[in-house]
């Protein structure tokens, strides 16, 4: 797909400005690119590299470490079924097998219509509500066979519950509003000195002696 749109590039620059060292913005910018395109495209990584001041290979090197970054297109909905301990001991393996059967793909695969990518994932931190799954990282809890069947039908049709889930790549719908003018202390590490309030320690010592 593509480089950042002008709006997203402006947002990306605001994000980069929050870090004393621009490369720290690599992961947030990769998320922004994935939100824009649904996956992390090669030319998006090139654009990220330009914005954070490193090579595209370094961005790829970082992005390829993290399983949320999809370097190839995935389904509109990523259906992630937790198969770790708390979910497995209450039937997660059966749910995964059922989902594979109904979708006609193995875990890791995408349906031919491009609607659903199925994954068997590790603990998603919803253990009291086991068995649990996420659709585009939104929780669906206490899943049983009927709920799973209905959910899969909705996701394939793009109707019903499917409308609750933003497209793959979209994480928090509320963004932190922190522009360059709001920042108090962001400077490169080598330019920083003792913060002013820390002088209170010395003042207190003088007062005590």
């Amino acid at each position: 797909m593509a480089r950042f749109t002008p709006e997203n590039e402006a947002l990306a620059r605001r994000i980069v400005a929050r870090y004393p060292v621009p490369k720290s913005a690599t992961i947030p910018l990769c998320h922004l690119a994935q939100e824009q395109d649904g996956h992390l495209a090669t030319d998006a990584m090139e654009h990220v590299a330009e914005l954070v001041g490193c090579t595209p290979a370094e961005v790829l090197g970082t992005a390829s470490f993290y399983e949320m970054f999809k370097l190839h297109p995935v389904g509109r909905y990523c259906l992630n079924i937790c198969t770790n301990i708390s979910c497995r001991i209450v039937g997660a393996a059966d749910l995964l097998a059922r989902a594979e059967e109904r979708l006609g793909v193995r875990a890791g695969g995408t349906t031919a219509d491009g609607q659903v990518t199925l994954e068997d994932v590790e603990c998603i931190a919803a253990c009291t509500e086991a068995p649990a799954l996420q659709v585009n990282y939104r929780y669906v809890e206490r899943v049983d066979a009927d709920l799973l069947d209905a959910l899969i039908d909705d996701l394939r049709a793009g109707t019903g519950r499917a409308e609750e889930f933003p497209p793959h790549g979209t994480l928090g719908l509320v963004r932190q509003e922190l522009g360059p003018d709001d920042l108090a202390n962001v400077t490169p590490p080598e330019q920083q000195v003792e913060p002013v309030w820390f002088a209170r320690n010395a003042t207190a010592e003088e007062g005590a002696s």
Partner: protein
Amino acid sequence: MSDAPAERTGGSGDTPLIVSSRFDVPEAHTLDVYRNSGSFPGYAGLAAALDRTPDEVRETVASATLLGRGGAGFPAGVKWGFCPPGVWPRYVVVNGDESEPGTFKDRLLMERDPHQLIEGALVAAYAIGAAQVFLYVRGEMPHAQERIAGALNEALAAGLVGRNIMGTDFSVDVVLHWGAGAYIVGEETALIESLEGNRGMPRLKPPFFPAAKGLYMQPTIVNNVETLSNLPWILHHGVDAYRAVGTETSPGTRLIALSGHVRRPGVYEVPQGTTTFRDLFHDDRYGGGIRDGNELKMFIPGGASAPWFFPEQIDLPLEAKPVGAAGSMLGSGAVVVMDETTDAVEACYSLVRFFARESCGKCTPCREGTTWEEKILERILEGHGRPSDIDLLLDVADNISPGPYPVAADPEHGLEAVPFPPKQTTICPLGPSSVAPITSAIRRFRNEFEARITRRDLIPVAAAGSGGDGV
């Protein structure tokens, strides 16, 4: 997806709720409700801190003996004191990359009481003289990210973060950052690598203790979400009130995430040391008993990395020291209960597969060892196990964590407890953690492994050669 909380929460009823007092308060994530609800008025702890010098705040936290809640249990105030004097800038990094299987207390703290966490982080930043706070939230938790982003936006507008906080000379930027799916990034040096925009691989300690050489090689304090969430209460109510809860060596409370085969799974805030696992599983305030009246088979007392406990250990208190001496750890406060219906081999496989998938690949014993552990367990489960596989598993495990591995006492099998922690041939504890389920399961349930290897009635049909499709 409603906003109504699904997870059960609660406390003992006898001691105050320190960190979870707003879990059931509607709209507690908003600044207005945060200021006017819960066990202390919101941002009163920060105001109390700003009335003291940074050193006094650090000493307050040190004398409270606030033990880190991320797993290692190191006292926060002592950790803060490790910043080398006169080296600037310093940073505070909030570790919200909670991914330990069974653990989800931090997610609730971030979703339901984000201002409490922000206030705690500000107290830490004031005490150590940090220029910036980075709040690192796990990638797979967009709801927590939204709640924290919203809270930070409100706090900025109210002058509670950024320049001249509460009209004082204290200024600090708080930046929300999130991960992208890697358990290892919960390890503090890997978290720092990730925050620098790199692959999340741990650094060798020494020399890279974050307090000395952390983010951008500057002094950095990495604290867990629950640890920081305790600070506002401590600053507002004082050290004596805090130390009145829990025990002498482990004051305060712990958030315990109780899951598995209990009637009432939930997140419970319990006073440290005075509650036992029996209370937690059977008391109606907490678990309410094993489901279906079944027998307890085993339980994990502190996340996937913790060696298993068995019915003999049920009367141990929820406190780091006695649990450690008994051969396991309280770790991240995740307790997983498994009843008699649980297949020990499958439970072991599920935990080992996790570590194999999450190994970052930096150290050979972990990268290769966890992979082989997973492969061997997989072939046992699929009916292709070999009689030598059980000892082979133990041998691979010994290469990752040499010597006697922490284990619970088992009088029936003549085993004495080996105390925590395990030895390691790796930079971080991930590899040695993969050994916990293997040694725990094989020592106690070797017969189940042997049965999987020898008994044809336990071999899956396709694997037994009945004309399956070879899958």
